[in-house]
């Protein structure tokens, strides 16, 4: 937490800033404009994506560790920390597999000083969600043990091939850890095995958590260890782990991190009578045939239950491309440039019209959790948000909702796609090459 204020002293030494002092009425004496801008600023906040096309570990192996100890029965989160954590964990599982279709996930719970396996490392979201749902009926109890959980996670990730990432995400509600041995040694082995740990704290910052994150993430604990402010922030911190991590150990010559994976692209079969699938032994019509051992599986992606070949569809690979080719951030447009266009390029939402004389005051939110009022005072500028956002390559204007939608869901810029030049401009050059090669391949 940043305790220093802009003036140099501690925050509590500053003169009091009252939130109602900085909020300004607009020309008509109404607060509506300011409120609308606050809402917009909030939306906008989530938009600061890193858009450099980083090499990312697309094949992920992640262990989600849930604190199931007594401290989770606190009711500072509604309905309880325990229930909310499970709800968010379910959401995490869904989002994780949506964004990382060829990755694996496992879940571990910490209770009574022990680490319990909730679900095995696997690629089927429904199994994990089922296991989490079953947890709902249990009660939190005892103390958590970080060391036990980390050791168990390490064991689960031990056999992971070198091309995959090894990650641990911990939801930690306690302020203590009840460990059987020296946790620092465990952290050392984790570091040696390239396991990265991220922690979401629900109560207060704990030194050992910070230490774990710092040591397993090359000294970076600010982006990997977060303590929540509220429910919304909890969700944001947790779901941030859905994005694949940038590979950091890449440039070390003939690196350990990258290699080829053998994968099967099974063909779909249509059957008139049902037959058993090899994965769940259920009678189903149709399915996919493993190209190596000709066994039938019912859903993809999966690992062939007979020969262990990773089975995927080419569409699953395509699902991960947007991580490799992120969409560039769009710029806010000020009133001076804004007047020409009256509606959003993609959804036709009419833009707010320019204020006639007095420029409206603007409240902007910078950083993730900075309080609004502090920045608001300094951000009263003449420009003002016009509610328009411009894609730097196609120069089209969009509304905030389309901005969010394009960056979070679609990963396309409608404007760039609608120009004859196409994709080349909207994403990094390296990425274009990939996309060209990919698409050529699919067309042949």
């Amino acid at each position: 937490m940043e305790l220093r204020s802009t003036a140099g002293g501690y925050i509590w030494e500053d003169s009091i800033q009252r939130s109602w002092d900085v909020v300004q009425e607009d020309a008509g004496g109404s607060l509506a404009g300011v409120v609308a801008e606050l809402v917009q600023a909030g939306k906008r906040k989530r938009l600061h994506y890193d858009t450099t096309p980083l090499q990312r570990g697309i094949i992920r192996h992640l262990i989600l560790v849930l604190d199931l100890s007594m401290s989770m029965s606190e009711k500072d989160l509604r309905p309880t920390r325990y229930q909310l954590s499970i709800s968010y964990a379910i959401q995490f599982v869904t989002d994780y597999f949506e964004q990382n279709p060829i990755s694996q996930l496992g879940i571990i719970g910490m209770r009574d000083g022990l680490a319990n396996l909730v679900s095995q490392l696997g690629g089927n979201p429904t199994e994990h969600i089922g296991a989490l749902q079953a947890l709902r009926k249990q009660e939190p109890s005892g103390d958590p043990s970080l060391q036990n959980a980390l050791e168990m996670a390490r064991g689960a990730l031990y056999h992971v091939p070198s091309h995959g990432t090894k990650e641990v995400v911990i939801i930690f509600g306690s302020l203590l850890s009840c460990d059987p041995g020296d946790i620092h040694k465990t952290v050392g082995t984790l570091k040696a095995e390239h396991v990265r740990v991220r922690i979401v704290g629900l109560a207060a910052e704990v030194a050992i958590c910070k230490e774990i994150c710092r040591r397993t993430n090359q000294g970076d604990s600010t982006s990997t260890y977060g303590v929540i402010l509220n429910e919304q922030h909890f969700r944001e911190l947790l779901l941030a782990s859905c994005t694949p991590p940038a590979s950091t150990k890449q440039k070390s010559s003939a690196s350990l991190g990258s290699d080829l994976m053998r994968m099967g692209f099974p063909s779909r079969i249509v059957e008139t009578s049902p037959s058993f699938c090899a994965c769940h032994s259920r009678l189903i019509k149709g399915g996919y045939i493993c190209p190596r051992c000709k066994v039938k599986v019912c859903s993809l992606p999966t690992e062939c239950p007979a020969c262990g070949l990773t089975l995927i569809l080419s569409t699953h690979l395509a699902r991960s491309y947007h991580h490799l080719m992120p969409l560039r951030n769009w710029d806010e447009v000020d009133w001076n440039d804004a007047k020409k266009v009256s509606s959003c390029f993609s959804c036709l939402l009419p833009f707010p019209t320019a204020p006639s004389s007095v420029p409206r005051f603007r409240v902007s939110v910078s950083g993730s959790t900075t309080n609004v009022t502090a920045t608001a005072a300094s951000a009263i500028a003449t420009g003002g948000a016009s509610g328009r956002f411009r894609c730097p390559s196609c120069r089209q204007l969009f509304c905030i909702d389309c901005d969010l939608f394009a960056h979070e869901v679609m990963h396309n810029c409608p404007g760039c796609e609608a120009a004859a030049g196409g994709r080349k401009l909207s994403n990094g050059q390296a990425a274009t090459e990939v996309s060209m090669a990919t698409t050529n391949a699919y067309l042949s």
Partner: protein
Amino acid sequence: MNAVDGSSHVPQVGFASELEQELPSLLVLILDTSPLGWGTQSPPISLHEAVASLLIFINSHLALNHSNEAAVIASHTNCIKYLYPVPGEDYSILAPKSTVTSGTESSEEMIPNGQSNGDNGTPNDASMYRQFRVVNESVMKQLELLLSGTSTSDIEHNGKISDTTLISGALSTSLAYINRLVGGVNDNGPKLRARILVVSVCSDLASQYVPIMNCIFAAQKMKVPIDICKIGNNTVFLQQAADTTGGVYMHLEHPRGMIQYLMTAFLPDRALRKHLVLPTQSSIDFRAACFCHKRIVDIGYVCNICLSIYCQPPADGSCAICDTIFDPKELADLLKKPVVVTTTVPKTKTKKKKKKDSDATPNFTPGP
């Protein structure tokens, strides 16, 4: 007197009303207006005939439910264009005959409000339902503007007529439009059910693979089915779009009977489709082609950094696309095969060059 009888409140046997069907639906029609597709390839139906059928189709869609909505987007060769609704025009309230309210740039394009008993046979006011008239007139008018505004230089590319159609742009735009109309605005749950119908005449464009895939996944996430009405060659991308999102893919064998296809296969909305046996695609090719030799493979090797697919581990031990150097030990594992004496491929070749003539490179491809 009916006190002891509960049957008045209980739905009749077999006549249970389904309220979920009452949810109105939004249809976004994407019309491929590529001149090459309609012109040179000379499909057995002209653009105007197709548009006539489509307008009737849109009217039928609007007729199903009073609250149904429609939007039409043209996917042209060098731009996309909303044919309906047109930004800056307010359709909800009838514009007074003389005064044009909107001061926007599009005001000079304002439709002459049904008064033109016009040259292209615009029907007069009393003969057509208002909602239909507004949509039809807008589509015709905007389409004409679009086509007349297209010059030869727009469609020519390196001396030959461009075969581009911006389907990916049109899909992206329509999804953004759907996103605004269906989500966000109203917090009381979705008030509309959206779907997309693409009328496509062109074949796939390699450069649009990734954006189209992105659109498909976005549509899948938003539960928006993408229907494809295909005239001319089949397209793999759009087949996948229909398959992934649960839409209907239909290749018109007799495009002249388009209206019948539209009415039968594409008109029912999602609620109704549950009850129908709709045309399905028997086979979609999901197999991948390798990047190095364009072979269709069923077991391939995938670079874990850029996800490019190879039919065999690259000879120089590095990825041709992203230059990643693979772990030699792991590579060796993958290559475990009966050892054949080979000459090593010179490593001096640049990546680009190698990629180009990789087909020709006499690797250890076994002869027939």
